[in-house]
């Protein structure tokens, strides 16, 4: 991990010093991260690809303003978020936006779906397209404020502090939103996953 970070810092130094084509190498491990970040903000895949490209170009243009106190991944995520938001503002009216801002205050039902006979869905099941689609649909259906935190924390593996920094939130707010996002997903997906993996007779877990 440390070695990778040192190598990355060295890459950045060389790019800023003039070996600009090395930026291709620097950005390659983060392509997916940038794409998922903007996808959590904009409405469709075409917009997400455009915004992801813009974000990467912006990162390239402003690499000399990157300061090593921040992790490169967090810095890049912030740029991707800004690009996604810019694209979203173009696409929708201010009225819609203020409605969504108000959504957080609203009391919602964040209790999970109760169940007893849960059977694990093995990762091989992801070869089935309908399962992947159900998972994507469930994430896409999350309210935006939850979807963004969920994407950064659980899809991109940023930690709480990095997520808070990238989204301009406190760590406490990140934790609450992540909790709600996970519960909403559990509630929405459990009925689907239970039919995706029918329980075997006689298999009823008594304890962990």
């Amino acid at each position, binding site marked *: 991990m440390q070695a990778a970070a040192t190598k990355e810092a060295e890459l950045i130094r060389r790019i800023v010093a003039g070996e600009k084509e090395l*930026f291709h190498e620097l950005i390659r491990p983060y392509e997916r991260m940038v794409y998922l970040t903007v996808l959590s903000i904009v409405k469709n895949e075409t917009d997400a690809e455009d915004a992801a*490209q813009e974000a*990467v170009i912006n990162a390239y243009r402003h690499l000399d303003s990157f300061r090593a106190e921040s992790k490169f991944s967090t810095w890049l995520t912030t740029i991707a978020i800004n690009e996604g938001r810019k694209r979203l503002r173009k696409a929708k009216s201010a009225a819609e936006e203020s409605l969504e801002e108000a959504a957080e205050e609203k009391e919602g039902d964040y209790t999970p779906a109760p169940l007893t006979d849960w059977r694990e*869905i093995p990762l091989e099941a992801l070869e089935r397209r309908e399962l992947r689609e159900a998972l994507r649909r469930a994430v896409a259906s999350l309210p935006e404020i939850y979807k963004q935190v969920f994407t950064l924390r659980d899809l991109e593996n940023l930690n709480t502090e990095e997520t808070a920094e990238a989204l301009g939130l406190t760590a406490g707010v990140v934790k609450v939103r992540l909790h709600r996002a996970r519960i909403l*997903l559990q509630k929405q997906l459990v009925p689907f996953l239970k039919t995706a993996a029918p329980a075997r007779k006689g298999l009823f877990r008594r*304890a962990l």
Partner: protein
Amino acid sequence: MKLNCKHVWEHISEFIDGSVDAQLRAEIERHLEHCEICSAILDSTRNILILTADDRTFELPVGFSERLHERLKKEIEGSEPELKKK
């Protein structure tokens, strides 16, 4: 303090992340030992997180990387004189 199911649900996300303190963790674990509902909720939530985080769930669009690097190549070639000014 004896935890009920609702308390456990409130902490489920932090429990998964391992960020609850030792005492609360022990209480939740004790509750899970005898509560099928909470055990199943915890297992299903964990499972959903593993499934959504898998690379196959959110795939990049076909050709995404090629198009990105093509655009970047143009930018790098085009911006050379501008960067040199600095």
